């Protein structure tokens, strides 16, 4: 089985990242925005792993390990904040979370 070249993996990573950015801009639901951020992190992970394979170095894979750790922490704290905000505002719409707006 021949392996796809590095460019293809990087293009796929860039495309998934761009779709995640579109999700953050377009959607009005905090949970979906969080999911789009997870998608962006995963696109970056794919890039790291592709480089790790094509440079023959394991350091890229270890960095992905750390990105997963940070993503898990981010998801946990983010969802806790969402629950906490939902209790006060009864809404998941970022337009309702503007207490700091001048």
């Amino acid at each position, binding site marked *: *089985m021949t*392996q*796809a*070249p*590095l*460019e*293809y*993996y*990087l*293009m*796929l990573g*860039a495309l*998934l990242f761009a*779709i*995640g*950015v*579109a*999700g953050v*801009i*377009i*959607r*009005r*639901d905090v*949970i*979906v925005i969080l999911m*789009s951020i*997870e*998608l962006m992190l*995963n696109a970056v*992970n*794919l890039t790291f*792993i592709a480089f*790790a*394979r*094509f*440079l*023959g170095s*394991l*350091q890229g*894979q*270890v960095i*992905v*390990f*750390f990105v*997963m*750790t940070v*993503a*898990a*922490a*981010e*998801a*946990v*704290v983010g*969802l*806790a*904040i969402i*629950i*906490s905000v939902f*209790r006060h505002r009864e809404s*998941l719409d970022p337009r309702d979370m503007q207490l700091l707006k001048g």
Partner: protein
Amino acid sequence: MIVFFILAIASIVFSVLIVAQRNVVHCAMALAATLFILAVLFLTLDAPMLGILQIIVYAGAIMILILFVIMLLNPAAIEARPAAWWTIGSIAAAALFFQFAALLLRVPLPSAGPAVPDSFGGPESIAQTLFTDFTLPFEVASVLLLVAIIGAVVLAQRQR
């Protein structure tokens, strides 16, 4: 090569579904599918350990967490943004992608990967790198996880 194209098209379709679907639960399901496909892509890149971790941590733990929060809050569907936002978001994302693509096409990249031993990306080799070159980040990550646990408990508990 064919495997890569099938997986790439499937992952693109599912990630577009994350953005495009109205129902939050359907978005979460599309995200789970995307994460599974990315795990398979990791396997094609000789990263078996991370592929399995991806399924356990992302498709398992994080997706369950997100689904539980959706169930718990039972949010009413928020009305979609007006079409202008869809245009702006799509154009911004397309511009970003073309910037990335232009950059990728300009930089010389290694054409074929070097031959790697069978143990490449297995638990043993990952642990070897993790505990020799990355000992300090490993310890910092453990502290980060502890802080995240305490922070989540404090944030999500009911105020008295």
